[in-house]
């Protein structure tokens, strides 16, 4: 990739659709810097009133878990059913619990 240095870096775009909701990943844009990345994100991902707030983050700054380690990372939670309310039996005549 001879062009790597010249190419505008990639940014991940997160949009809050409306207040009260979290920012959600919308896609990516290329931009030379954060300010222009926000503008590119606005012009690309909020043309149809999709958002009230935008985050951008350099894609290369994201640390991600490795799917190859998904077993050790996520499966241990499967055996902890006691973290869920349905694990506990409460007689029918007991209300509001």
């Amino acid at each position: 990739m001879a062009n790597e240095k010249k190419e505008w870096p990639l940014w991940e775009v997160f949009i809050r659709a409306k207040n009260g909701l979290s920012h959600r990943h919308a896609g990516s844009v290329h931009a030379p810097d954060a300010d222009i990345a926000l503008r590119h994100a606005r012009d690309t991902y909020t043309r149809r009133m999709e958002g009230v707030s935008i985050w951008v983050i350099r894609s290369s700054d994201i640390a991600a878990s490795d799917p190859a380690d998904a077993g050790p990372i996520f499966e241990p939670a499967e055996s902890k059913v006691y973290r869920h309310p349905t694990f506990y039996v409460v007689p029918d005549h007991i209300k509001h619990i």
Partner: protein
Amino acid sequence: MTANEALFDYALRLGDDALILSQRLGEWCGHAPAIETDLTLTNVALDLIGQAMLLLGYAGEVEGKGRDADKLAFHRDATKYRNCLLVEQPNGDFGRTIARQFIFSTYQRALYQELTRSSDRRLAEIAAKALKETIYHADLAAEWVIRLGDGTEESHERMKAGFEWYWRFVEELFTAEPADAALIGAGIAVDPAKLRAPFDAALAATFAEATLALPKYPRPITGGRKGRHSEHLGHLLAEMQFLPRAYPDAVW
């Protein structure tokens, strides 16, 4: 000129500026330096078409001769167009396009800011809606002036050359027409002389960041507001108006 004719002319000027610049920006569509930039320029063009539709629509109502925005846009010859010379200039390279956008949007932002207080309710409403768009355009253009001015040697030279093309057209933006006096007195129109200070301040701030030297303005070229345009407008209109002119009975 009656008061009504003066108001018609004033609304026409505002609408023609927006229309002609959107036409120019539309020429970029599909040809910009990056896909993202393409979407950006198109968004500005779309905002300006929207403004043109409102302003020319209002001009037609004021005139009261049954001409709507399309009639005014597509069935008027160059001498009847009232836009400033700045907006009809060919795009040139991206630097020149950004220079034009910076000058125009910075002026238009100051203008709309004042016009939101117009005693003409319709103009005030249109200005309030358009102001939000225009603030964005002016900031966007300033950001690019800074990046190109303070980028590479080549971009600095191109940004400089882009502005050099336009300095002679700046004075026109801040010059009132004789018929405006009554409109300004009635609080309908904005006195353009009042817009010069905020324009100069914004320009100085951006140019400092962009490492660009402040302009030495040459002898101004004016005439657009009176229908005396550059050679470019005729060609622009010939292209833009071709279909409705060639098929006057057709509805599209």
